[in-house]
């Protein structure tokens, strides 16, 4: 499963993308964020406030309860500030 990061999430994690293989009990976007936060100090910093993290699955916004099974690309990022 490919995960991509943007803005300060990318800076804190220290990479723009990676392939991860979460265990089977990680079934939703919220679960994935929690699981990533446990992967080390940089991840803990990036995901220290899970409620501000936004996610997209295959280029469409996905709230925390969205099931991630079948996703090709999951993006995690801060609230958007375009326009």
């Amino acid at each position: 499963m490919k995960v991509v990061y943007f803005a300060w999430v990318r800076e804190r994690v220290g990479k723009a993308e990676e392939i991860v293989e979460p265990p089977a009990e990680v079934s939703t976007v919220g679960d994935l964020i929690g699981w990533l936060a446990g992967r080390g100090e940089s991840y803990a910093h990036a995901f220290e406030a899970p409620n501000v993290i936004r996610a997209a699955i295959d280029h469409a916004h996905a709230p925390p309860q969205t099931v991630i099974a079948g996703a090709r690309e999951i993006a995690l990022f801060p609230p958007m500030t375009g326009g």
Partner: protein
Amino acid sequence: MGVPVTIRLQEADFDTAREIAAMSAGRTDVGAVVSFSGVCRGGPDGDAIDGLTLEHYPGMAEAEIGRHVAEALARWPLMGVTVIHRHGRIAPGENIVLVVTASSHRGAAFEAAEFLMDYLKTRAPFWKREERAAGANWVDAAAHDDAAAARWTKS
């Protein structure tokens, strides 16, 4: 014949004038053209912004803007929509974003342009990083932008 739609994400600056002119050129059915230009501010004296860097999510940005344009076309009787959003380095005084809407009457053109801007601010995957003498920082999302976007939600 569909409604002419232009969506562009680009690093280069754009010519607002040309985009607005293109919207009604050679047509006599357009009665109202509304444009919104978002411009990079320099900040007040003493806290000057040297510029912005706009990060975006390629692929999703186009898809998300396309979905909002499609929703605008479904909600208002529009005769043309243009959305251009820059990414990369942008200096104070330069353009960031342009939305142009055309309709036969002004209410639809105004509402659709506001709708698209509210959604670009809160749902399109772009992130602004401000550069100041003291360093660079990511811009925080503004609660008033979320409130502005929420008023378009069908109840």
